[in-house]
């Protein structure tokens, strides 16, 4: 009964989406205003129905209802409870339902609260939102029904990929999805504004919270995904330039650019066409990312998410939305009036550099990711890896970070360089000093060296906008910018430090043997088998001490799951403030010794602290923006120009 309720709710929601589309289109064309009045309620009701459907799915997974095909295929009665529930979205159908639920919720929220835009633009936005939504409803209902029954019900389910039985990963895909969906809202706003030719600062202010929210979730999603790959794959790396990782990085790069350009539009009414363009590109990257992950046309470590047949459906949606939006854009762009002009030395000027650099890096990652696909069409197989991505993106990353040091100090519209001359000279002198200092004392590669110097420079520069201000009266949005930019410095420091100073050891050790890596020394005490709820493992027990300090226990495991059969590595991490010791246990050699892999990774944790700080900065901005908006709505006369971007 429950699955049928879910399915019925989904069909109803799809019908409401049709109504919302029609009402929106008629309203935007100033016809049939009776039907246009339906658009907003339809969006709100849709959100409720999708929530009901999603709750139904959670329920069938929670009780392991094996008469539902999706549960039988992906769950198992012996799985821990939390992974039963997270299994609801750890598969294609469930994740698409989650996508559409979040999307409907976003649509409902806009319809419910948003009153600032001209009604026509609003209706055009709602119909764009419904149009995008309908594609996913069709996908879900016609080709991937999550509530399909299985008769007779099997006695036991097929289990879940053990790599996915991890608390971090239970929340990694939904986080990214919320980000993607947020970008779909930005996309709908962009299309709505384009269709009604009203690209205004107001439009930018309405769109900005959605971009910010999407960007926060994408940042968290990428940070969590990177940490997951780091400790779950057991290879000691935190970023592999894998196609699937790139698929999540590309929308983030576009969203970061959009976030900065939308601020220019909101504050200064400039970069109109460019902002619309980025709105379209950001969502395109989410769709292309989803397509690459789900279709499996690229080889990746994330092969568990692959299904080639569904790839065609996503491709069709891609062509429809992205192709369609680009064509509308090409037809309409010339009719959007040019925005305000500004001087090169100004806040806007710096943000334009940021946008160009981010777009260039986006292009580099896109080309690198898709290049094997292109050459394969001519039967040439290549693999593009770090030797391409790292140096080539650094060409744009380095100037972007240099501008990041200066940009926030500049005023809007026009500024004299002379005003901030000494600050800039001091910043660059410090950066150069660190560069030379580290170069003299440590023998490290060029990129990590530049990274360390820039991390220090950006770290100091990010705090300068607070200088001479009353910290209590500084707007939250400014705090957000400071915290996020400081997070960039922290993450960069972690990356550079890890690649410059990490120490790696592979040892074959018998029980009782001493092991050492970098400043850590210890001993392999015992090795014995342990059993979990759905796995058995070989566990190595070590004691290790940092520079002769207190001994700490590390117990890495090599796990064997039995449903389905799979071997994974559970690494042991010993975290200190200045880095992490990473221990993985491998197979037993023929002479009875155990393979141990040890890495000492100085300051590696800063990568993820930085990621969290960046997201926190976004959250501060979001709260600041939304509260300002609410205040302004109560007292419209407060409508002053904003001094700081997101």
């Amino acid at each position: 009964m429950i699955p049928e309720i879910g399915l019925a709710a989904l069909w109803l929601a799809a019908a409401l989406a049709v109504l919302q589309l029609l009402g929106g289109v008629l309203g935007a064309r100033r016809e049939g205003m009776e039907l246009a009045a339906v658009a907003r309620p339809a969006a709100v009701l849709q959100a409720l129905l999708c929530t009901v459907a999603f709750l139904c799915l959670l329920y069938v997974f929670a009780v392991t209802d094996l008469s539902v095909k999706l549960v039988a295929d992906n769950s198992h009665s012996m799985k821990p409870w939390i992974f039963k529930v997270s299994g609801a979205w750890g598969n294609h159908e469930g994740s698409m339902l989650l996508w559409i639920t979040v999307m409907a919720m976003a649509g409902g929220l806009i319809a419910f609260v948003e009153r600032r835009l001209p009604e026509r633009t609003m209706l055009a936005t709602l119909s764009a939102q419904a149009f995008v939504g309908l594609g996913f409803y069709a996908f879900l209902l016609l080709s991937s029904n999550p509530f399909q029954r299985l008769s007779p019900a099997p006695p036991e389910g097929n289990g879940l990929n053990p790599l996915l039985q991890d608390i971090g990963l239970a929340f990694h895909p939904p986080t990214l999805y919320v980000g993607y969906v947020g970008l779909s809202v930005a996309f709908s706003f962009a299309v709505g504004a384009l269709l009604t030719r009203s690209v205004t600062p107001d439009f930018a202010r309405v769109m900005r919270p959605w971009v910010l929210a999407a960007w926060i979730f994408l940042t968290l999603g990428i940070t969590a995904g990177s940490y997951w790959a780091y400790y779950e794959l057991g290879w000691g790396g935190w970023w592999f330039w894998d196609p699937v990782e790139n698929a999540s990085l590309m929308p983030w790069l576009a969203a970061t650019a959009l976030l900065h350009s939308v601020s220019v539009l909101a504050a200064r009414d400039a970069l109109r066409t460019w902002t619309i363009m980025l709105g379209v590109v950001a969502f395109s990257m989410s769709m292309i990312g989803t397509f690459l992950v789900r279709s499996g046309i690229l080889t990746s470590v994330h092969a568990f998410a692959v299904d080639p047949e569904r790839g065609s459906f996503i491709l069709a949606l891609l062509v429809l939305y992205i192709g369609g939006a680009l064509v509308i854009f090409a037809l309409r762009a010339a009719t959007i009036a040019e925005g305000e002009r500004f001087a090169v030395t100004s806040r806007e000027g710096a943000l334009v550099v940021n946008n160009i650099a981010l777009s260039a890096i986006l292009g580099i990652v896109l080309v690198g990711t898709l290049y094997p696909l292109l050459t394969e069409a001519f039967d040439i197989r290549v693999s593009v890896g770090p030797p391409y991505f790292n140096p080539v993106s650094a060409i744009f990353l380095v100037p972007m970070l240099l501008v990041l040091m200066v940009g926030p100090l500049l005023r809007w519209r026009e500024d004299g360089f002379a005003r901030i001359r000494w600050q800039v000279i001091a910043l660059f002198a410090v950066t150069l000093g660190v560069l030379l200092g580290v170069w003299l004392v440590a023998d490290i590669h060029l990129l990590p060296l530049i990274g360390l110097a820039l991390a220090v420079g950006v770290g100091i520069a990010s705090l300068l906008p607070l200088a001479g201000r009353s910290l209590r009266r500084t707007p939250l949005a400014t705090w957000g910018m400071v915290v996020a930019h400081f997070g960039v410095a922290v993450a960069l420091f972690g990356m550079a430090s890890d690649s410059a100073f990490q120490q790696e050891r592979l040892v074959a050790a018998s029980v009782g043997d001493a092991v050492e890596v970098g400043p850590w020394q210890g001993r392999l005490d015992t090795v014995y088998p342990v059993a979990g709820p759905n796995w058995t493992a070989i566990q190595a027990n070590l004691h290790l001490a940092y520079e002769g300090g207190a001994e700490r226990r590390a117990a890495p495991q090599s796990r064997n799951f039995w449903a389905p059969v799979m071997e994974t590595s559970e690494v042991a991490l010993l975290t200190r403030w200045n880095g992490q010791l990473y221990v993985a246990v491998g197979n037993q050699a023929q002479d009875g010794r155990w393979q141990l892999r040890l890495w000492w990774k100085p300051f590696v944790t800063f990568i993820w602290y930085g990621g969290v700080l960046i997201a926190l900065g976004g959250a501060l901005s979001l709260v600041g923006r939304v509260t300002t908006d609410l205040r302004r709505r109560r007292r419209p006369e407060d409508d002053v120009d904003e001094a700081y971007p997101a």
Partner: protein
Amino acid sequence: MRRLRIILWCMVAVAAALFALFYYQLNQPKNDFVTSAMVGQPLPQFALEPASADRPGLATADFKTGEPQLLNLFGSWCIPCRIEAPQLEALERQGARITGVALRDTPEDVAQFLELYGNPFTRIGRDDLSETQFALGASGVPETFVIDGAGRITYQHIGPIAPGDVPVILAELRKAGSGS
């Protein structure tokens, strides 16, 4: 404005080309065993410097021993190569003689890679400019070739060797051994 419009239509064209590529690739059968034009041909001429201190370099002449051998292309920077490392060791345990070519690598990185992921190789040549890789008709990493005792390429495996591929490659080695 005119220029903007031209740029935008160019973007539409690029997107269309991209979608066409996606469509084409989506409908392409995924086959990891694409035969190189070099299969069945004698090995191209090469003489490579050693890529690590404890193994000699590799030259075409080293294959004319009357014994079939494997030739594995790898790189310390290549993640799939790490994944296939245990399978190479398994092949070695089961009697395969394996030679390697390290692509675009430094001796230090190769030494570290071998220490971490095992060293089943009898000889390792260094190919800093991918010349030998291209001469072999290989374009990706890792790839593994079966070379018979007369120095002829008899089989090519593209991509990392999965555990299921080990018996296939052993059979190919036996075939190359009985044929010459």
